[in-house]
């Protein structure tokens, strides 16, 4: 039953070195034509964070969320988002974009989404470090909960891999899907707990609001982003909400199952669909 999942995961494992080297070449190719080179990898997120600092931290001065300064609360959500959003969009597009290059070689196509995810990770880790520095500046006491970041990183990568594997196949077969996905991702930013605190709905509409909030929680990114907040702000352990944790993993495995299945089914014919 899990043959295709096994095969896809085996390919990733066997070619893990190749993934990292290809990802670093991708970055090199991207930044080599710039005078500042890979310094942009640091500069880009720094500028983005600075803008949000300026708008939300100084001018708008949002109210603290459960005692956490709004700006700190905001960037813990935003920084994973800066990684998730482009990874999903580029990961989904990766097969369509690169299949022409790799089809002539003995190269497993299932690596293409992973390469995109890994090459985006370099920037993400720089941003995570910035994030921790900012958290310290804001006077967050380092606690044992921080270890949980590793668990949520695992969740994040598992989800990104499963989702982009599935969606890279769909996107190659049906090009409209990529367009729809881009719009959908833009919308997702506003229904995830990134820019605003979703518990406001429950506070405002009481019972109906609670259902709406639970509905928003069905979004797996909700689990990951709130998870990062739980870890960095030291709010809760992931096993304290087993139902939600269970839901996330069951969903991720389901995506992986179907992703691997249709990937294996169609991969020999990808060239015919270009």
């Amino acid at each position, binding site marked *: 039953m899990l043959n295709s999942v096994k095969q896809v995961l085996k390919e990733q494992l066997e070619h893990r070195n190749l993934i990292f080297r290809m990802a670093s070449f991708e970055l090199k190719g991207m930044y080599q034509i710039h005078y500042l080179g890979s310094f942009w990898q640091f500069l880009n997120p720094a500028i983005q964070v600075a803008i949000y600092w300026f708008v939300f931290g100084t001018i708008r001065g949002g109210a603290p969320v459960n005692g956490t300064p709004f700006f700190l609360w905001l960037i813990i959500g935003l920084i994973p988002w800066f990684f998730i959003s482009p990874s999903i969009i580029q990961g989904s597009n990766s097969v369509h974009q690169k299949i*022409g290059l790799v089809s002539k070689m003995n190269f497993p196509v299932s690596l293409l989404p992973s390469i995109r995810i890994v090459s985006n990770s370099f920037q993400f880790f720089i941003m995570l470090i910035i994030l921790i520095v900012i958290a310290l500046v804001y006077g967050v006491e380092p606690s044992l909960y921080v270890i949980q970041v590793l668990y949520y990183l695992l969740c994040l990568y598992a989800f990104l891999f499963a989702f982009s594997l599935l969606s890279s196949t769909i996107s190659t077969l049906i090009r409209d899907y990529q367009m729809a996905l881009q719009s959908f991702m833009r919308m997702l930013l506003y229904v995830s707990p990134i820019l605003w605190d979703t518990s406001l709905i429950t506070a405002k509409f009481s019972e109906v609001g609670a259902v709406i909030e639970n509905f928003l929680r069905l979004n797996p990114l909700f689990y990951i982003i709130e998870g990062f907040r739980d870890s960095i702000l030291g709010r809760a352990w992931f096993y304290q909400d087993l139902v939600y944790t269970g839901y996330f993993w069951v*969903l991720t495995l389901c995506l992986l199952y179907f992703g691997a299945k249709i990937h294996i089914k169609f991969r020999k014919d990808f060239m015919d669909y270009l």
Partner: protein
Amino acid sequence: MMTKVIFKNVFKTFELHAKKSEKILNLFSLSKKPVKEFMALKDISFEVYEGETIGIVGLNGSGKSTMSNILGGVIQPTEGSLYVNGETSLIAISAGLNGALTGFENIELKCMMHGLTKKQIKKATPSIIDFADIGDYIFQPVKDYSSGMKSRLGFAISVHTNPDILVIDEALSVGDSTFTQKCLQKMEEFKKEGKTIFFISHSASQMRSFCDRVIWLHYGMVKDIGEASKTVDNYQKFTKWFNNLNETDKKKHKKEMLGKQVRINDQFKSLKKYNKRTDVKEIIKNILVIVPVVVMGILVLIGI
């Protein structure tokens, strides 16, 4: 002699759709309308033995590139069976070099994608640079290369990845004669090593001097296969005859031949592979995977 490649009744068809939406309906086999198909390859059968060099000639659109793509594993035949014993490497000039990276970096990248180890790459790099022979440009970004330089580099990398079966799809036609000479020498080397080579070219003289046997593809079918000079002679006789026709006869002939390549497929032959009646087991499996998600989703929704 060992058989290296067997084509047995190979068909490659491309569906002709009037509208884009028909394609997607067909993909999910929702449409029951008969499909118009273009047969790029029509009932091709032949065998190739170890160490042979096979030339492929034919007019534009006769299916040469479709055949080389099938040989290289880029696309799959629609019908028929294909047996390839060994690794094939398709050498086409356009094969992706990354424009932003230097030639030197591209060598590493492409070798890596071909599955060479770091050590092997290190060993191969000097001889690739030597073969490409583009001087200091090797350390410049590929986007600044001339088209000749690109094809030199592309060819140099491809021949150093050490394949068993080489498919050369008109890759030699871009370089100047000195480079072509060098490539042919390299090909001779491969021949001596007992490698099987498929050689697609429009140059009759290269075909004659270089190939053991030649396949003449004509509107998707094998018109002639046999000893190189004989087949090339036949082919040249045909082109001469064709060129002497007047314009209307030429058009008529072409139309007639192309018409033979179109068929109406109402039996959904080509879709069979996806359309294998999804058996009950498969459906149960899928449901088994989805059910837990739905159950957990409901639990989250009611807020337990």
